[in-house]
């Protein structure tokens, strides 16, 4: 039998296609053998294009005002209280000069220059921690929240060097002995990972506002920055607000009413 080059190529092409598509079919059936369910966003999930927070600093006047919201956060998320310089912070307070270091001149009202300010992760538009993380353990969600995946954290602490707000803490030791009352609904972390505020993603999924917002009696507002009718946008339209270290270009998502 004589075969032309043309016929040979036809058969070869068809065979190659058959082999290739058979492999694809096999792949499909292999996947079907380990069939499992599908994944959805939680039904009560609160959604936003860009979550943001507005802190009314006029309503944080004494230590109890701060402690109330800090305790709410730290208890909810099993944040340990370690004495010394190895402490872990999600939500904490500091002076004006440390919070807004650009121009803390001495002629400001006493309330400002001697006052304290609530600090937390700013959930930046352009987060340096995400850019430097070598494993992708920290990343920015579509709704603007910068979250940590402790499963992937290798503890290199690049993010701590990258963050200009000191919002990240490293677990130098096992945090469990330093957690007074463990909240079993939320996993604590382990030695060797970095952690920080998550804007309570796990609460948003259940339709609840962040723990600090709930505990603050309206002194902290939380909402969608892209929605002109949201509480945060109203507060921003009615009050003068500043953000921390805006010149760095990180685009913080936490605003302070002064």
């Amino acid at each position: 039998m004589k075969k032309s080059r043309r016929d040979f190529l036809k058969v070869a092409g068809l065979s190659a296609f058959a082999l290739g598509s058979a492999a694809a079919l096999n792949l499909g059936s292999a996947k079907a053998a380990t069939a499992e369910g599908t994944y959805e966003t939680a039904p009560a999930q609160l959604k936003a294009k860009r979550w943001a927070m507005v802190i009314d600093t006029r309503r944080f006047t004494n230590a109890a005002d701060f402690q109330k919201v800090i305790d709410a956060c730290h208890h909810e998320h099993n944040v340990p209280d370690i004495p010394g310089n190895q402490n872990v912070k999600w939500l904490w307070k500091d002076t004006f000069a440390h919070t807004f270091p650009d121009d803390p001149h001495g002629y400001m009202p006493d309330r400002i220059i001697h006052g304290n300010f609530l600090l937390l992760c700013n959930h930046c538009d352009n987060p340096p921690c995400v850019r430097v993380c070598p494993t992708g353990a920290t990343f920015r969600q579509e709704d603007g929240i910068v979250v940590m995946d402790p499963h992937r954290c290798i503890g290199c602490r690049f993010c701590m060097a990258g963050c200009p707000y000191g919002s990240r803490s490293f677990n130098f030791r096992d945090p469990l002995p330093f957690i007074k009352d463990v909240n079993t609904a939320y996993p604590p972390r382990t030695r060797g990972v970095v952690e920080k505020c998550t804007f309570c993603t796990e609460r948003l999924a259940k339709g609840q506002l962040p723990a600090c917002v709930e505990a603050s009696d309206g002194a902290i507002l939380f909402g969608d920055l892209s929605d002109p009718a949201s509480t945060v946008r109203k507060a921003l339209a009615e009050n003068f607000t500043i953000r921390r270290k805006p010149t760095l270009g990180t685009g913080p998502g936490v605003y302070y009413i002064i």
Partner: protein
Amino acid sequence: MLYNAKYIIPGLVVAVAAFTAPFWLNIGTPSYTYPDVAVPTGEDSKQCVEPKEWMRTQHMTLLNTWRDEAVRFDKRTYVATDGKKWDISLQNTCLGCHANKVDFCDKCHNSNNVQPYCWNCHVAPKGNE
């Protein structure tokens, strides 16, 4: 003609015996049996998220996917193959029923010599203390 046969042949015999020792030593020992794990008995815990046999072989893959979907993609609801919906949470959903870690998780993991590091962070249920 094999040079130094008086060293080489005993050496080979010893080597073959050493390599096959696990087979000889295990002749007559009872074969592996699936450990008797404590299965939850409560009213709401008759059925796991997926069938028992599938969970036995695939729970680690499922837990990995649960972790990634919840933490990385914010998808916190699992729709099982039977259509039932579950909250994705090792701590609250899995351990809610399987409250006896020592007699459930550990029994199998120990007999198979697996050391999962879930419990480095996740709080082991108190039901076993």
